[in-house]
């Protein structure tokens, strides 16, 4: 490369940095929040800090459509298309919504909390754009380390214990993943995910490649909290602050899932030369659904139940990866959006429970009659989590299972049919525990031990979420059109 060429290369590179404007805004904004905290002192102006953070999120949202790269940029490390933009909006929305949880006041008094929320969004932004394994690892660590700290924000023994537990498991899996990545690098000499496929063409022994892929996937499975890498999640969900749990139950998962989809697309080229990861993924998906749903049956603590429910949902989302078609990608994105809204909304409900010192679902007895609108809204959200019409959850499941069926027709592999039948059966299983909430709300007589309070604002927010979930069913095409 001569001097002239290098110069233009550099200019291009610097020019392409402009595409990172939303990310840079997040970084700048997060520093601003920390500075604010330093200047005005801890514990004060929590309201203003939250508003400032929301402002940063809003500015970022405005910048997303302004700086659009279509395709690869920055030396083919990053990739953008309209889907990444929609996902960015989704992440910004989720982060903003989690900041609005009224009961998270204690966390928001500490400036780092908002800073960390912005960081997790930043990590999410990179995760969906990277096509390079090293940068993926860095982004993933950004998300993970922030999550460990966020979970500890519940303070007290329990919170720290959960944070440490999360950290230990997370560090272990990160280590395994890094080991896998090193092996991949050693085998291919490259870190672009598209390069992995070239290994076989060059004629290497695939044993090592299999091992490295497996190690890499273990790391992913941990982040998605699918069986058997799920043991951390119930404890973490239970002990963590609700707003943080809502955030980490959705954002990192969707981000990792999107990256994983592209990753599997590139190794799909290798076909049958590597181990049959599709079957492995199918087994893990089924296991997650069964273990998640069956364990959730016995939970009375709302957050533990949601932990198991999210394990089951991660299993369902894995189906899209097994299928791997364009249709499946769309279905997965739609599912992710709906799931994001549902989860944020349901944790909002749990936030209200905690505000009124309610930990267990059975303590909700009779409250639905006291707050009918609130109860109906949460019932709609739960129906969507089960996947019943007329809710977006049903459309999402319908799309994913349609994609699966189509793949079965194409490949005619028996395990896909099993995945289809047993996966649907899980919808019936999940009915038991999700329905427990409206059951206690409406059917069980009130025990009248508590006198919970409910602000109008809460009712309105949850009703909006319920409405979104309904619209996602009646106007599925709007959502899909927006995503793609």
């Amino acid at each position: 490369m001569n001097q002239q060429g290098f110069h233009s290369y550099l200019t291009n590179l610097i020019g392409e940095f402009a595409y990172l404007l939303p990310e840079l805004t997040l970084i700048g904004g997060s520093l601003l929040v920390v500075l604010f905290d330093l200047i005005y002192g801890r514990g004060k102006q929590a309201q203003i800090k939250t508003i400032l953070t929301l402002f940063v999120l809003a500015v970022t949202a405005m910048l997303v459509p302004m700086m659009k790269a279509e395709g690869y940029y920055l030396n083919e490390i990053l990739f953008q298309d309209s889907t990444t933009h929609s996902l960015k909006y989704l992440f910004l929305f989720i982060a903003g919504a989690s900041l609005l949880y009224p009961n998270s006041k204690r966390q928001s008094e500490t400036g780092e909390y908002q800073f960390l929320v912005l960081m997790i969004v930043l990590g999410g932004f990179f995760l969906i754009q990277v096509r390079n394994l090293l940068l993926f690892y860095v982004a993933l660590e950004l998300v993970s380390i922030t999550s460990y700290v966020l979970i500890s924000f519940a303070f007290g023994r329990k919170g720290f214990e959960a944070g440490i537990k999360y950290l230990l498991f997370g560090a272990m899996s990160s280590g395994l993943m890094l080991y896998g990545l090193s092996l991949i690098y050693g085998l291919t000499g490259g870190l672009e995910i598209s390069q992995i496929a070239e290994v076989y063409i060059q004629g290497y022994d695939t044993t090592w490649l299999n091992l490295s892929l497996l190690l890499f996937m273990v790391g992913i499975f941990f982040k998605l909290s699918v069986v058997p890498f799920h043991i951390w999640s119930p404890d973490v969900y239970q002990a963590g602050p609700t707003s943080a749990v809502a955030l980490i139950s959705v954002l990192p998962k969707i981000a990792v899932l999107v990256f994983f989809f592209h990753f599997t697309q590139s190794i799909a080229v290798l076909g049958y030369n590597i181990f049959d990861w599709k079957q492995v993924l199918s087994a893990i998906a089924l296991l997650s659904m069964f273990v998640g749903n069956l364990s959730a049956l016995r939970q009375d603590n709302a957050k533990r139940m949601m932990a198991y429910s999210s394990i089951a949902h991660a299993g369902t989302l894995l189906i899209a990866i097994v299928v791997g078609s364009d249709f499946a990608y769309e279905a997965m994105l739609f599912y992710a959006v709906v799931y994001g809204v549902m989860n944020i909304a349901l944790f909002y409900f749990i936030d209200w429970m905690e505000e009124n010192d309610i930990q267990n679902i059975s303590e909700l007895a009779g409250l639905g009659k006291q707050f009918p609108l609130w109860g109906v809204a949460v019932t709609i959200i739960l129906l969507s989590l089960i996947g019943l019409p007329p809710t977006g959850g049903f459309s999402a499941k319908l799309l994913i299972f349609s994609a699966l069926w189509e793949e079965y027709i194409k490949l005619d592999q028996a395990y896909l049919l099993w995945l289809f039948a047993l996966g649907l059966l899980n919808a019936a299983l999940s009915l038991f525990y999700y329905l427990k909430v409206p059951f206690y709300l409406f059917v069980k007589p009130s025990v009248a031990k508590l006198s919970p309070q409910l602000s109008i604002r809460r009712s309105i927010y949850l009703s909006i979420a319920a409405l979104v979930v309904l619209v996602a069913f009646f106007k599925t095409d709007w959502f899909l059109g927006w995503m793609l």
Partner: protein
Amino acid sequence: MILDHILSWLIFVPLLAAGIMLFVPKDKAQLFKIIALAATAVELMLSLVLLAGFDKGLEGYGASSLQFAEKMDWISLNIGSFGSLLIQYYVAVDGLNILMVLLTAIVMLIGVISSWSIQKSVKGYFLLYMVLTTSVVGCFVAMDLFLFFLFFEFMLLPMYFLIGIWGGKRREYASMKFYIYTLVGSLFILMVMIGLNLSVVEAPGSMVHTFDIMKMMDPANYLPDALLGFGAATDIRMWAFVFLMIGFAIKLPAVPVHTWLPDAHVEAPTPISVVLAGVLLKIGGYGFYRIAYSIFPEYATDFAWVIGLFGVLAIIYAALVAMAQSDLKKLIAYSSVSHMGFVMLGLASLTIEGNSGAMFQMFSHGVISALLFILVGVIYDRTGNREIGNFSGLASKMPYFSATVLVGFFAALGLPGFSGFIAEFLVLIGAFDAAVNDAVLSTWMAIAGLVGLILGAAYFLWALQRMFFGKFWIKDESWNLPDLDKREWFMILPLAVLAILFGIFPGLLLDYSNETIIGFVEYIQSQSEINVSLISGGN
């Protein structure tokens, strides 16, 4: 003008009423009842208008014989390489469902009157009741499988709450059991629905995947390499048929998946029992016709014997179980299972008589079972008890009530002159015909059906004798037993009159369904030959 969209009105009037109720303050209990009554009365009027405008002479079965059709694109999804997916708002009636619409309107109206005594959270109750009405009507008239499924599922939640909140002692258990059973059934249907949608397109050569049931009936619309098409994988189509049959059999319910029904009935409040037995069960039977048989006609003959067997099993087994019941409501619940067995037997016969009988049975049982559950409600309201052994000689104390029970029981056991007799008679003729001429059923099945009738007479008469005749005695002296009041007369009389009216003039109803039933039977025969040849041609 209103006739153009009469079906939409039928579907959405109750929902509209529910919308109005939302804005009525909670403490105006009477107003909710009046709104509900008005809405269901409008439903009945609309369905009568529908009946009046219905062309009874329209022959054939399929898209061309549908009347009052409304079709509108609803959701259109572009799904990449695979084409697009179209969900339509498509409602229509023909001879198969017009009577079901009428039945729904009648039973729902009676149900509202029967709900007059509801005290507990009246607003919630009638809201759910209205939503239930909408979904039941929608389910009967939907011609788009997705729409059908939507209404089918949407029935469950109101029902769950109606049993779960306003039910008896073990209502929590019963409502959950109801929900789980029906949901498992609907998952079977959902699986086939997804498969069908991916296999069927709007027109040959198009890439628009449709849920239109009428399109699913034409083999030309199937993609050549689709899983549920007529390609190599023939077994899949058979399994799809079996899955649909299982799904609807749970709803019907057929033995051995009937166990949710007695629990649900026993725990449900009287009006909900009326609705459950009166119309909800019929959706299972209707689903056999409209969906399972219509889309997979080639298995109708192959499975006729098995379906007939399950029908007979239900008739005999449920009748025997009913005989052993000590709870009057449970007895009637089992008699429902037994009577729905006739629907399966009539369907399996594949004859015009048998199928007319099955259709007629659905209507007739809807009216009669509603009557019976109201009669049980009468005694339960007064005493909070319905053990057969706790009562004796009621006839002397409550003569009018006893007389109506006599009428109800006679109608239920199939005495000539009542509608139940015509229905079961036609089914049995069809079964004999099928056994003798087409050999799709065995002769013993028809005979067993006859035995079922005798068993039915036995348990009804025995219960009658134990409770109403003999010396007056009740377990608890403090029970106050006044005779029927005005409101009860208002529910019982129309139903009893209908049971007798249609028993004497069955043509009033049969005329509406006759041409379609003829068309349906012909369609099953001719289309199954075509499909079979396509399948064997594919191999």
